[in-house]
């Protein structure tokens, strides 16, 4: 658990603030999206947690311990860190990049090697093919996967991610976001995820904290944020994409939860086209458009949870339309 209590950062001894009296909590296993336009203080907030930046005031605690009273080196080695411009070391192989923190922690060679292979597999890179490659030989998406694997290398309970998918093309980004959600639902890390993209924030965040000029504007679940903005700024920030965002913040799971679940006839194998309970209504629409089917299978990871009928989906969308 990460707790920020009245945290401020000023670079000119109090005349202006990059971050001003920010208080929030990231619960164990939660993904909190820090959302705002550039210069709003979201990256500063992130870097204060692993002490790349020292706060000017307030208190930051991890599991109840003040970070300022801890050795910054040891602190950082317990926190996963991934950033936007990939930040892979160009002079190290993929394997060496992923192994950086385990090496710093002094793991044995065999344990490191096993862990590297395990992580590469986890992020969808075949270890035999990729571990000996250099970053210059990877695509942007592959680099980001390595970046995520590296952040998770020592299995840290907390992961800080600063726009990790920011430099990718939209298709690759969406793919990586989905993979991240799948991964996160498995490994349940406490994640602080910085982004300027409202779609990404509502998609990956269990909750979203929206910042402006260093001050917290609203901290809420994606759905609450979209449906009841706390102030003018949040309202402006969500802008004209309100309806789209509403569809994005509602998951297949929430629709199924409200409906009567048809548990009949689970298929023997997970089909190629399926919905996750975490898929948004937009993705569900996409799937129906693509497949032309009347109903789709819904899964929570490998577990079949039921069928979602096209008719049910459209009803849910009509309801959102009515609200908006």
């Amino acid at each position: 658990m990460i707790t920020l209590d009245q945290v401020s950062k000023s670079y000119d001894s109090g005349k202006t603030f990059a971050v001003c009296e920010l208080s929030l909590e990231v619960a164990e296993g939660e993904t909190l999206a820090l959302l705002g336009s550039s210069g709003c203080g979201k990256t500063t907030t992130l870097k204060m947690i692993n002490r790349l930046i020292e706060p000017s005031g307030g208190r930051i605690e991890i599991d109840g311990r003040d970070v300022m009273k801890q050795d910054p080196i040891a602190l950082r080695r317990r926190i996963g860190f991934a950033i936007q411009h990939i930040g892979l070391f160009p002079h190290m192989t993929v394997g060496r990049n992923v192994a950086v923190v385990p090496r710093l922690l002094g793991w044995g060679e065999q344990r490191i090697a096993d862990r590297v292979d395990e992580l590469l597999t986890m992020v969808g890179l075949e270890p035999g093919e990729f571990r000996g490659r250099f970053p210059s030989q990877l695509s942007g998406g592959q680099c980001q996967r390595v970046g995520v694997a590296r952040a998770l290398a020592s299995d840290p309970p907390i992961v800080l991610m600063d726009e990790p998918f920011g430099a990718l093309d939209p298709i690759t980004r969406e793919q990586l976001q989905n993979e991240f959600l799948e991964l996160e639902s498995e490994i349940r890390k406490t994640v602080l995820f910085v982004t300027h993209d409202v779609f990404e924030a509502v998609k990956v965040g269990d909750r979203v904290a929206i910042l402006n000029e260093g001050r917290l504007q609203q901290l809420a679940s994606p759905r609450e944020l979209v449906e009841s903005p706390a102030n003018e700024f949040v309202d402006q920030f969500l802008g004209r994409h309100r309806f789209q965002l509403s569809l994005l913040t509602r998951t297949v799971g929430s629709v199924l939860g409200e409906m009567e679940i048809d548990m009949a006839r689970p298929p023997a194998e997970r089909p190629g086209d399926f919905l996750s309970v975490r898929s948004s209504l937009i993705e569900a629409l996409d799937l129906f458009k693509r497949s032309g089917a009347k109903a789709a299978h819904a899964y929570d990871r490998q577990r079949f949870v039921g069928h979602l009928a096209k008719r049910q989906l459209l009803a849910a969308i009509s309801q959102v339309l009515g609200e908006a």
Partner: protein
Amino acid sequence: MTEFLREYGWDMLRLLGDHMLLTFLALLISCAIALPLGVILARSRHRRLAAVVLGIANVFQPIPSLALVALVGVVFIYLDLPTIGMLPGLVALIAYAVLPVLRNTYTGLRQVDPTIIEVATGMGMRPRQVLFQVELPLALPVIMAGIRIATVWTIGVATLVSLIGAHSLGDLIFRGLSRSRIGLVLGGALPAVGLALLFDWVLGKAEKSLMPKGMDQSGKASGNREESIVAASSKRVLVVVLVAALLIAAGALVAWRLADRPDVYVGGKDFTEQLLLGEIMAILVEEHTSLSVGQRPYLGGTMVCFNGLRRGDLDVYAEYTGTGLVNILDEPAVGDPNEAYRTVRDQFAAKYDLVWLKPLGFNNTYTLALRRKQAEPLGLRTFSDLAGHLRSGKAPQLTAGFTAEFLDRPDGYKGLAKAHDLSFPAEPRQLDPGLMYKACAEGSVDVICAFATDGRIAAFDLVTLEDDKGFFPPYQAAPLVRGETLRKHPQLEAVLNRLAGRIDDETMRSLNYQVDRKDNPRRARDVAREFLRKARLID
């Protein structure tokens, strides 16, 4: 070619070794200074500090390398350090080589993407780990480029430190230049060029083996995890062992060189006459005493020799009274040779504890020269004879050709014309010193200026006129010895004074000629020995 190699091959090999040693040590020490300094500067928060230090290092760069070599000599006098030999040469080279290494280390480190450094820090690397695992590997190509620049520069500048008595291939080059022997110049210059190419190639190889593979866009994907880890560390061990071995070898060589100080160092400036006088004095001392004698020939000018003598880097060299008076004591020239000699003898003893022994006999001053075939029928023996002939207007009408310096100096042609009422019907032509003697011999001009003992006077069958009014200040040569050396080895005085009055203008000219002549030039040592034998100064 084969003859050249037989004569100078051994010298070339020895000097090549000296050159490599000098270059290697200078580079090693420069790196030892510049690499840590560059790291400190690049990581310092005080940007201004970096600007100041790089500024200071930059100051050395526009100083012409020759001037820097001289500057080190001057600074070393104040620090009371040796001004002749390997140490000042090494320091001059280091002063030169530090900058490119320092600048490239600094720039290389500053060029590393700050995001990469932040990630490394954010992952929990200590500053030292960030430096060694991330910053330095990424800056390596730039740093290596700096070292390669420094190497090529150092090899070039190392030829110049010959002038302060640090042995290098420059010894051959300067010997060749002063004697117009292109073969010798090439014998020094070509190996230096080869050396530069070789060192650059070796460093290129080293760079490639040290270079992180990912930096090389063509780096092949290798699926073998062990390979990248093990190979890197064994390579590093190899490099460390290699550097350590070279270091020990170089250290031993330097220690051996420094421990090898002979009882008496005989020096000389960078022209043939000085080389000969050095050989003559050295052979004489070797033959008549039990002292060990070392030679430091071809030093870059009067001040290098004089300062070396004061410091004790030399014990004796031949100096000229006029030079002592004007260049060292900064006094006006004196016409009377005896008065000039007395003045320098007394003042040098009082001021510097340096002893002028008895003059050798010749007077290497400016004079005028003509073709023997022309001067003798006209009966021209003195400056006054010449002035008289010119005033009489009789045939033949003589023409003159002088060097730019002689035309320009107030104590050159202008003063001479006034003192001897000398005027040529046509304005004297300005001639290149290298071509002047030939021009006279071939009859393009009739009268030229010359140094009285120049070997070419004999070579071209010219005669010199006597300065019967004593217009040109005397430049009598005499051994100049450290007082301390004489007290330690009192026998030196009597031995060197055996040369008193034994070398007149004619003799010196002939000795110079034998070394300088184009056809079948002889080695200075052989010429010196032969002279001493004929003069019955040695057996």
